[in-house]
């Protein structure tokens, strides 16, 4: 058993008057557990995410980061625990006891999911404009001119040249594909975005540009973000708070600078000291 060093956790309360007023935490995760067959992947995960907050999840490969994201969005059904999400109406719902139709509706309107590999989050064979417009068409928008306007607007915000709007993302570079995926996720004005290693596989200068872009968008749109990364520099740059995972458990949480500059847990100390200095 690895001891968990962290600030005491405020347990989720479905009847919290703060929630009803709409200013409770956006996401309250408690006791989350997930196993692939008999192989435990997540155990006793507690998290809170406040509106407008960026939370980084760090840890080595296989520590359960991606499984955690899957359980948050409902793609994976955890065997234990609940994921309480505060809807726009000020109601706290458990993502896993919702009906599938209701969960899909919430995911479409309130959630964005940026995948590590943009090829998993994009339709490579249809144009960039259609990729950005699709979430809006799914929501029922049926005006071609307006959809195209929105797509053009968003391509501009993620710094993709306007004349690429009709090109399929298969012809884009990796960095452009990732930016396009971000535009596709933000076009519906979500309240929470999950990002799984958004800078993975990009060279450092492209990474830097993407990070600048993300930082700007997150503050402009007041997004709450759960950012999975193994790159501590990315966490330092973007995240307000950091949780460190090992073997499916959270071993340390705290303000990003606090955790990185004064790591308490042995594993966090190892992680921080493993970063290469050029």
């Amino acid at each position, binding site marked *: 058993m690895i001891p968990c060093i962290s600030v005491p956790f405020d347990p989720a309360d479905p009847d919290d008057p703060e929630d009803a007023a709409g200013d409770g935490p956006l996401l309250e995760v408690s006791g989350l557990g997930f196993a692939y067959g008999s192989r435990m992947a997540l155990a006793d995960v507690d998290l809170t995410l406040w509106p407008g907050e960026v939370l980084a999840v760090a840890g080595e490969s296989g520590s359960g980061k991606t499984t955690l994201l899957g359980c948050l969005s409902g793609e994976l059904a955890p065997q234990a625990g609940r994921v309480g999400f505060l809807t726009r109406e000020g109601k706290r719902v458990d993502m896993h006891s919702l009906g*599938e*139709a209701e969960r*899909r509706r919430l995911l479409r309107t309130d959630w964005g999911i940026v995948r590590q590999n943009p090829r998993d989050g994009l*339709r490579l064979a*249809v*144009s960039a*404009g*259609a990729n950005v*417009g*699709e*979430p809006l*068409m*799914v*929501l*029922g928008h*049926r*005006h*071609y*001119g307006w*959809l195209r306007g929105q797509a053009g607007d968003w391509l501009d915000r993620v710094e993709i040249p306007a004349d690429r709007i*009709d090109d399929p993302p298969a012809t884009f570079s990796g960095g452009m594909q990732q930016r396009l995926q971000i535009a596709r996720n933000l076009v519906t004005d979500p309240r929470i975005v999950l990002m799984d290693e958004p800078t993975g596989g990009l060279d450092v200068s492209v990474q830097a540009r993407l990070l600048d872009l993300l930082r700007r968008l997150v503050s402009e749109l007041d997004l709450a973000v759960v950012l999975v990364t193994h790159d501590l520099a990315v966490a330092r740059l973007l995240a307000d708070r950091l949780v460190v995972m090992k073997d499916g458990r959270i071993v340390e949480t705290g303000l990003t600078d606090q955790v990185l500059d004064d790591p308490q847990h042995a594993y966090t100390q190892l992680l921080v000291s493993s970063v290469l200095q050029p």
Partner: protein
Amino acid sequence: MTAGYNFAYLDEQTKRMIRRAILKGVAVPGYQVPFASREMPLPFGWGTGGIQVTASILGYHDVLKVIDQGADDTTNAVSIRRFFARVAGVATTTRTTEATIIQTRHRIPETPLRAGQIMVFQVPIPEPLRWLEPRESENRKSHAMADYGAMHVKLYEDIVRYGQIATSYDYPVRVAGRYLMAPSPIPKFDNPKLDRSPALMLFGAGREKRIYAIPPHTPVVSLDFEDHPFRLQRWTEACSQCGDTASFLDEILMDDQGNRRFVCSDTDHCAARQAAGQGGAP
């Protein structure tokens, strides 16, 4: 019966199974009902779905018409018509007005259908969403949740590439405000004929093992955008046989000099007009 077969070729148990699928299809308009498709004495893609549906609904007093791309005299149409004349001994016709059951490949007759008639469509690919999403499990979920926004991506791409919605056949429709449906590869010219038709429309996909239906008087809407509404194709030419300007025309190359003529795709419609004294430009 005739020729040593059970009436209409299929055994009674099979017909009952198919009729149950048809009834379910009629009860849930546009929903693809799985059924245990049988092997038929013709290859997949030649109308095995349609022929099974026809065999299951055929009665002694039915009059059968079979068309292939609108024509009564092509190989596929002649063979299927002869098949049922032989194994069911039913009367066959080429006249739309006389027929009680019309099995069709890729057209709806120009003559308006009436109550009591049944159209049977041969369907190669019943799943309209397959273009975007090859996973059947995902598509079934989309149907269950009425989650059809992705279909508009195809129309959007058409406008991006061609400046208009260029899908001209198998044009997706929404049936009774609920299920998204592939109307089989009929030209979009025929889509309005599906809407609130007094005739029953049955769709059979033999290889894909699906049956679906549009009951009479069901609203059927073709998908479009507000600023790019659904439009029918029009011809500037008239049929060279009967002079009709409103029917669906086939283009025929006449020689190596590029001379061409246009004729009605619906041969019965064209013949009826000629018999009534209408003629086209030679």
